[in-house]
């Protein structure tokens, strides 16, 4: 009698467990940990601006300007500057800076205001010695060095841009605009 009862209770327990397991396994709950782990950034990185980084070459400035104002190669607009690729070496569409999403600047179309207005940057920030080239370079490369909780994009530590491209953007921002 006792045995039968135990048996019945065990059977019921097994049944409920299988029920839970079955129903639970019917729920979609895929793993995201691997995707996230690969996507996380390393710590903030301090960079040394390469020699000859800041340039007056109109083509370099034009490339910096283009990267600043555009989002990607597919939908990129305006005159396409010499020496800038639309695709990455692996064939993927190249992403540009989309800096105007957050910043206003000369000629910006639909400039945002999450970041400071970079209009007249040379007169306001460079000529007054408030900023220097290396500071601007570092800000674009990895702004976390200057502000741990920044809302600004990280552009060199993420590998989205090369040193040269960061130099071109910096050259554009600090240049005199016509």
């Amino acid at each position: 009698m006792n045995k039968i009862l135990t048996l019945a209770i065990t059977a019921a327990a097994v049944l409920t467990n299988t029920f839970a397991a079955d129903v639970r396994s019917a729920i979609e709950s895929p793993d995201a940990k691997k995707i996230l782990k690969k996507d996380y950034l390393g710590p903030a990185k301090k960079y040394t601006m390469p020699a000859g980084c800041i340039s007056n070459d109109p083509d370099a400035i034009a490339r910096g300007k283009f990267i600043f104002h555009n989002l990607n190669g597919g939908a990129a607009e305006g005159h396409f500057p010499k020496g800038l690729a639309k695709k990455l070496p692996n064939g993927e569409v190249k992403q540009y800076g989309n800096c105007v999403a957050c910043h206003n600047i000369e000629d910006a179309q639909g400039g945002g205001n999450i970041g400071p207005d970079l209009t007249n940057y040379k007169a306001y920030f460079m000529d007054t010695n408030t900023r220097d080239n290396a500071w601007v370079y570092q800000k674009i490369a990895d702004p976390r060095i200057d502000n741990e909780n920044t809302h600004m994009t990280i552009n060199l530590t993420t590998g989205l841009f090369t040193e040269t491209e960061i130099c071109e953007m910096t050259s554009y921002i600090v240049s005199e605009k016509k």
Partner: protein
Amino acid sequence: MKKTLILLAASAALAFGGEQFSMSDADRAMYAEMLESNPAEMFVAGGADLLEEHCGGDAGLAKFLDVSEEKLPEYIAGFPRYVKKLEGVVALDQVLQALMAQNKQKPFALKSAEMFAMSAYAKSIANDVEINIDVTANAPMKKAYALGKEVYETKRGGRGLACLSCHSSDVIGSILRTQPLPDLGDAESNSGGTWPAYRMTKSSLTTIQKRFQGCMQNALLAVIPLGSEEMVALEVYITNLGKGNAIAIPGLKR
């Protein structure tokens, strides 16, 4: 009366937006018209039929969740929540998958139009009830909340951005490429209480987790899958931001 009020609030918000925002006059007119009759109402009605057919309707759902039909709206207003028989913190669409499985049916995929419609209806059972998610109710909820906060705040992806980069209190209302940044927890965006919602730009009904994926994609964060522990945790975190707002399904979004 209520609709007119919402309409007034919405047009005030849009008027504040002004010329520079991407809603043109034509968009605004369409938005106003859709507020009068949200195209997603049709999908939600379809969702009610699906729930009836596959899950035994409101009564079947209440039974599965071990609550009375009378208490069901209140209970639904607390999702995502810990459900003991499912051994974890789950979103409402996942409950529906389990319920379909119990009824010996192949559950709708989380990304299917059927699931969007059925879960929209299921959540609408709680319409007008205040969001009552309790992120301290038990250990699994505390854990999900902490994970959601971490995923929300951690910078990642091609541009090194986190959800927080664009949704923290110090940038709300600033303009990102012609879009004002919404306050996910305020009564106007009410992210926790208005999804599934109709997205005018996508002409379809979609879920909050799909909306998260949209932001991830736009901001170059690797897109994580619907239903993953981290996605549910994000839903917990964001729903909690709007605790106390009334649920109003289906929402209407740009």
